[in-house]
Each structure stands twice: as structure tokens, then as C-alpha cells.
């Protein structure tokens, strides 16, 4: 209850001090203003997606900043000495720290909730005001590919090890490897596998490929649809930039209906095909056949090679939840990050006074946000086989890498918990993911950071000047 009193106090301060107002104003500008600044020539889906993406990202960033600034309250209380009175009341120090964190967290939750509601409302606004390009298509695309929570499944890659093994044996019989120095059979087999894999991913004109999906656990009724998403990646641009092909779904051996879907797809783009869900078999598998032929009589056929690159992927997607809950789970994930950040900034203001603490918290924020990027950059600047002592530069780079590795223990990788991209592309922000974020960011890391904060605060003489 005393913790709650401190949290209440923090909330009152957050609301009455102008800083929160400024941030709310900024967030409001972004969220409310974005729809009006989106140009009219993008498609409806594009407009809604870029709005959601920018809106959520910016709101998340601004709330992160707000969190850091709100924590200023603690160092303010030390500088202006209100802490003298608070600490002479029977308030255990840990409750003060937790109360402050709770206050910041609750403020964030309220702000984030209103951001969510505003974004939700604005989507409808955009939907009804966006200049239609193709009314029915736009509406359907938005409804099926954005305002849903879809589960995505990758296809099952065929096993190439047998083919590789066969070729390997044949090569040995033919004595191909006899002159190779330091011959490593495992490496060679790996190379052969990759060769078969790469070959499989390329579909020449007139050729076809079978994609098999497992665990398509959707409602297999005729009225329901599953979606297939792929990228039309062709060897040469057709003059009209259109790639024509035929997709066939269903498995007659398992007694499903077979649907043939001819496509005219813009090259170099991702496309989504909708198929009635009863194409999936009873054992929850789905077969998709791709034919590199032109199913449109009378239209030109350019002999193009389609390549299904590993990085592009071919996915089956089906609806597993509503957009609203997906939005909610997205916000929860964002909230987890803010909760961790709040713990960090509370820790910082306990150790340092305001401007320094603010910088430190911001550094952690940036490090957490750009962790992968930084790790790659550091890795790149280090030579491949260098050791720490081979040069001065290596010494610095490698020490940095070591420090950075140590930071990993505390600083999480925010990119791993960034739901915006999934959410915007209508993918399910899974409950498991959310629970992972809750446990890693909040239950473990935020608690550790708060624990350190409490420990340091206990040792601290509050009447000492802080730096």
C-alpha cells in the first residue's frame, strides 16, 4: 500500500509536470497526424500498413524517451530534497524504488493503451476516407492480409541427403576426389546437399515444383481460406513486368478438392494467393504445385526462370485470431520493453543525477535496440583470424566485443521482441512470444535491474550530494 502511495505520487507528478504533456502532444501529433500526411496514391493496404508501422514505432520510441524522462522524478527528489521527508517516513527503501517504477509503468500503460485505441480508431478513419483504387480488392486485401492475426508456416524442404550421398558414392567410384589434398568427406557432402537445394529452388520454364506444408491447423471448411505468400523472383524482367504462372492446391490422393489458380503477378514483389481451406487434407497437410507455364491463352509468355530464394520463403498463412487481440498482444510486447527500460532508468537515476542518468539510460535503450546491428558492425571491423594482441586496433575492437558480450547478460535484444513488423503484416503475435517477453524482459531482467537499484539505494546516503 505504501508502494502504491509512491506510485500514485509518481503518476500525479507525471501528469502535472508538463513533460508528460509534451510527450502526449507529440505522440498525438504522430498518431493523429500521420493518416492525413499519407499520400493518396498508395493502396489502401499500403496506407494502413505504413500508418500502423510508423504510428507504433514512433509511439514506442517516444514512450521510451518519456520513460527515461519520467525517471527524472527520483533524481529531482534527491536534488530538491523531497526525499528527506519521504525517507524519514516508515517507508522501506525497496518500496520507494518499486513504487517509482510502478508509477512510471502505469503511466506508460495508460499512454500505450490510448495510443492503441487511437490507432485502432484511425484505421477505420483511413479505411473510409482513403481514395479507392479498386474498391473491393482493396477492402478484401486489407481485411484478409492486415486486419487479421495469421499464423505462418514454412514449407517442408525435401531431403537432399540421399541424392547427395548417391552422387558422393558415384564420385568416389569414378575417382573424382583422388587428387584432392586434405579431402574432407563431410564438407564435400554438405556442398553437394547445397547444390541440390539450390537446384531445387530454381524452376525453369515449363517446369514445376511441389511445396508441402504440414500442421496446417486451420478450420478446413470451404468458406474459410488459407493464404499462400511467395515472391515472384524471376531471372529476367518481362517487358510488361508481369509474371504469369499456375498454382494448384490440394491433394487428390487424400481426397481433397483441387483448386487451380492462375496468377498474373508483378515481378519482384510478394504476392498472396487465397485458397479455400478445404484444400488442406485431413491430416493437416497441404500440397501446393507451382507450374512455370502461362495459363492465359493469348497472352505473351516470356521464358523466365522463377527462383524461390531461401531468404524470401514460401509460406502458408491462416487466420488464428482477431486483429483486436493481436493489437493487444503487440501492445503488451511493447509494454514489456518499456517496463525493462523503466527499471533501467530508475537504476540510473539512483546512481547518477539527472542529465548523466538520462544519457546512460538512453545508451542502454540504443544498445538494446541496435544490438544485432552493433554486434555485426563490431564483428566486421575485426579481422577474421586476428587475436586480441595482433594489433592496437584489434585490441580495442576485441575488448569492445568482450564488453559487449558481457552486456548481453543484462541488456536484452529489443529487436527480438519487436512485434510491429509481424503485427503490421497481419501475422499473429503469438502468446508464446508474449510470454517469452514477459518472462525475459520483465520477470528476469527488469527484476534484476530493480534489485540492483534497491541494493545501491540501500547503501546510499540520501542526504549526500549526488553527481
Amino acid at each position, binding site marked *: 500500500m505504501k508502494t502504491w*502511495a*509512491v506510485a500514485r505520487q509518481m503518476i500525479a*507528478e507525471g501528469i502535472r509536470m508538463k513533460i508528460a504533456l509534451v510527450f502526449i502532444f507529440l505522440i498525438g501529433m504522430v498518431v493523429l497526424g500521420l493518416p492525413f500526411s499519407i499520400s493518396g496514391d498508395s493502396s489502401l493496404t499500403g496506407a494502413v500498413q505504413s500508418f500502423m508501422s510508423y504510428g507504433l514505432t514512433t509511439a514506442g520510441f517516444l514512450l521510451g524517451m518519456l520513460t527515461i524522462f519520467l525517471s527524472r522524478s527520483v533524481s529531482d527528489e534527491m536534488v530538491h530534497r523531497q*526525499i528527506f*521527508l519521504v525517507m524519514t517516513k*516508515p517507508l522501506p527503501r525497496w518500496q520507494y524504488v518499486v513504487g517509482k517504477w510502478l508509477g512510471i509503468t502505469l503511466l506508460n500503460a495508460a499512454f500505450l493503451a490510448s495510443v492503441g485505441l487511437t490507432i485502432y480508431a484511425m484505421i477505420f478513419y483511413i479505411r473510409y476516407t482513403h481514395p479507392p483504387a479498386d474498391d473491393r480488392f482493396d477492402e478484401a486485401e486489407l481485411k484478409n492480409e492486415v486486419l487479421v492475426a495469421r499464423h505462418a508456416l514454412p514449407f517442408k524442404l525435401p531431403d537432399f541427403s540421399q541424392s547427395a550421398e548417391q552422387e558422393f558414392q558415384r564420385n568416389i567410384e569414378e575417382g573424382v576426389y583422388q587428387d584432392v589434398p586434405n579431402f574432407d568427406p563431410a564438407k564435400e557432402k554438405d556442398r553437394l546437399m547445397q547444390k541440390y537445394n539450390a537446384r531445387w529452388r530454381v524452376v525453369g520454364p515449363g517446369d514445376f515444383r511441389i511445396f508441402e506444408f504440414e500442421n496446417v491447423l486451420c478450420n478446413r471448411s470451404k468458406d474459410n481460406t488459407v493464404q499462400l505468400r511467395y515472391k515472384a523472383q524471376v531471372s529476367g524482367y518481362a517487358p510488361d513486368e508481369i509474371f504469369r504462372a499456375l498454382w494448384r492446391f490440394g491433394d487428390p490422393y487424400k481426397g481433397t478438392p483441387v483448386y487451380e489458380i492462375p496468377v498474373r503477378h508483378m515481378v519482384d514483389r510478394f504476392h498472396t494467393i487465397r485458397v479455400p481451406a478445404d484444400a488442406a487434407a485431413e491430416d493437416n497437410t497441404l500440397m501446393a504445385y507451382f507450374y512455370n507455364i502461362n495459363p492465359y491463352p493469348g497472352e505473351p509468355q516470356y521464358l523466365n526462370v522463377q527462383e524461390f530464394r531461401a531468404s524470401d520463403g514460401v509460406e502458408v498463412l491462416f487466420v488464428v485470431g482477431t486483429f483486436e487481440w493481436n493489437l493487444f498482444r503487440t501492445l503488451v510486447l511493447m509494454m514489456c520493453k518499456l517496463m525493462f527500460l523503466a527499471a533501467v532508468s530508475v537504476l540510473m537515476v539512483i546512481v547518477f543525477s539527472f542529465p548523466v542518468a538520462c544519457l546512460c539510460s538512453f545508451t542502454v535503450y540504443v544498445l538494446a535496440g541496435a544490438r544485432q546491428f552493433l554486434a555485426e558492425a563490431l564483428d566486421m571491423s575485426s579481422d577474421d583470424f586476428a587475436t586480441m594482441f595482433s594489433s592496437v586496433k584489434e585490441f580495442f575492437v576485441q575488448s569492445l566485443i568482450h564488453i559487449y558480450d558481457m552486456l548481453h547478460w543484462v541488456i536484452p535484444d529489443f529487436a527480438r521482441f519487436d512485434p510491429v513488423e509481424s503485427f503490421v503484416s497481419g501475422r499473429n503475435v503469438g502468446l508464446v512470444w508474449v510470454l517469452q517477453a514477459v518472462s525475459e524482459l520483465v520477470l528476469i531482467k527488469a527484476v534484476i535491474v530493480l534489485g540492483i537499484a534497491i541494493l545501491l539505494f540501500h547503501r546510499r546516503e540520501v542526504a549526500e550530494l549526488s553527481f
Partner: protein
Amino acid sequence: MPVVQTAGLCKVFRDFWRRPRVEAVKDLNLEIQPGEVFGLLGPNGSGKTTTIKMLLGLLYPTKGRISVFGKPPTDVAVKGRIGFLPEDSYLYRFLVAHETLDYYGRLFRLPSRIRHERADRLLDMVGLRHEAKRRIGEYSKGMARRIGLAQALINDPEFLILDEPTAGLDPIGARQIKDVIRELGRKGKTILLSSHVLADVEDVCDRVTILYGGQQRAAGDIGDLLCQHDVTQITAPRLSPKTVEELRATIQRLEQRDILTVSNPRVKLEDFFLKIVEEAQAANIRTYGARKGGELPEFLQKPAETTAKDVVDSLVEASTRRVEPLPTREPVPMHAPATPASSVIEELIQPQPVKIAAEEPISQPPTPSLDSQRLRKKADLSVIDELLAGRGGDGKPEA
């Protein structure tokens, strides 16, 4: 058990590199008994506030031990029994007065009903009930200070620590704080106060310690420290020159010494000021500032130590011990019965209402301190006889 006990207390402030910079408190041994009003005196920077902060656990001592109610000052339960008024009002500028009191009440886990009731009573007491809806940030210094006092009392503390309680207050506020201190002292609460206004300290304290450079220079019972045993003061109704002459002759005859001064006493400026303000208040002149507060709230009225038996015991023990000479290292004037002669005479001769312009009696003379009251009860006329018979004064009687 003493409320506060320190042994060899030292505080050294260090700089960023941990080099010692200021030795703010040196080898301080304090002992504050329950029910005592204890004064901490000393020039600026002599370590009063530092001592208080250590008693409150805001600073940790460099050396030495502190116990407050027998526990270390960082103990959370101990803090529930303490009220603290810091030397500046460190309040939240964005809260209104009532919210401020409510917040501190919450930190004591007071139930909501009691919080509101006490907040109202205390705002009444400090005369800010009418301005309770304004933010503290808008308050004048003294108004904020009054809220500071109110928050110090919200938990009905057994031990009240006041760092320069009268600083920044108008005479009404100062007087009122003194009244509150005296009243609380009478109810058996323990009070530690530091102040530069020596008159205030003299008015309210039972015992004082004077610090200089963080060290204790003098300590003892205020009656003992200040009593001029060789002067007698008589206050009488206005006397005609003839009577004065006759008195002089009588004293000359009985004591073989002359009267030192004869004058009309002046009313204290404090009393005069209070009267003017009271008049303005009666005439309902609008103010956005503090008003003269009311009485001590009821929840503070009840005698303090009714809860813990051992505290009662120690209180009784303390009050009996108080009459004995206190153990200090400083020479304390000797006294047979420590009876300030002046107070005894005061009682004998009813004070004459002093006239000021408006021809009406002024509120009341300042209440005598706890000690003089207690001692007065024991006084008997023989002391007067003794005084009149043998001892006289050759110092200056006080005006």
C-alpha cells in the same frame, strides 16, 4: 530508555575521490530522555543539521553509534514514531496542501478517514485551511513551512525533530509553533529542536546543547545554565515615585544595597504584533496568506505515552531525575533547590495587565516553561524569606 542516545558520533564528509573534506560532527554524545524538549544550538555550519540527519538515517555516521528508541535510525518501524520538520520545506510543488498531507499520511499507512480528519485538523492548526486547495509551489516560504510542520505531526509522533522550526515564520507562526512545542512537551512527547532564535529556545527547551565546529561545548538544564542566582527581579503594578523612593529606602535598610534599575516594562513586540493581526482578522480583511491557526488538534492532545509500559516507566524515571544535576563535562552552576527566584515571585505577585494603546488586556503572558512550572509547585514561601533575608543582587536585573 532514552529516546536518543549517541556515542562518539562522528561525521566526515568526503569529496568525489573519498578524501576527507569536512569534519561536520566530532565525537558527539547525546542523550535525550522521553518527554524532554531538547535544544540543539550552535552557529551556522556547526553540525546541527548533520546531527539531525544522522538521527534520521539520512546520513550514515562515519564513526560512533546511534540508537533511536533503542534501534538503529534506519529501522523502518522507528520512523513511524518520529515526526520531522526539515530546515527548508522540501515539499512537492505540484501538490496542493491537502494532497501533501494525504501523501505523507499514506506513507504511515493511516486509514483514509483518519488521514482526512488529521489533515483538516492540522491545516486548521497551521491556519491554512482556507488555502488548502492551492499548490505548494505557489505558497510563500512561511506558508510552506507551516505545511512542513503539519506533515511532521500527521502521525502523532512520539518524538518530534524540528530543524529551525521558527525560521521563515511570521511572529504568529513562530509563537504558535512555540505554543505547539510547549503543549506537546507538556503532553509528554519528546522534542529535539535546533534554532538560532535563542529566545525561542529559551522559551521552550528543558535542556540544551551548544555545538561549535561539530563538537559539544556546553550542555545542561536551561534553568541551570541561565539562572542568575545573584539578581532578584520584582514585577509590580505601576508605582508612584514616592513608593519607589520608599522601596529603595527599605531595600537600602534591609539589604544595605541600592536598587539597580527602575523602569516601566515594555510589552514584547511579539505580543503587540499578535494583537494587531488579531484585530485585522476580527475585521475580516481578506488575506491569501496564512491565518492565525486554531488549537492543537485533538489527536495530538492525548498524552503521548499511554501505549508502551516501559516508556511510561522511563518517563517517570526521567522526570524524577530531571531535578538532579545533569552529568555534563561543563561546569554547571550549583544550586540547592534549583528554583529560579523570579518565577516564585512572579507567582506571588499577579501580573498587572499592561496597557497599550487600545486599552484592552493583551492575550496572556508567555507561558512559563515546563520546568519552572513543575518547580513552582514545589516552591514554598520559605525560599522568599530566605531570599529577602540574606541574598541580594549586584548584577543587572533583566528587563
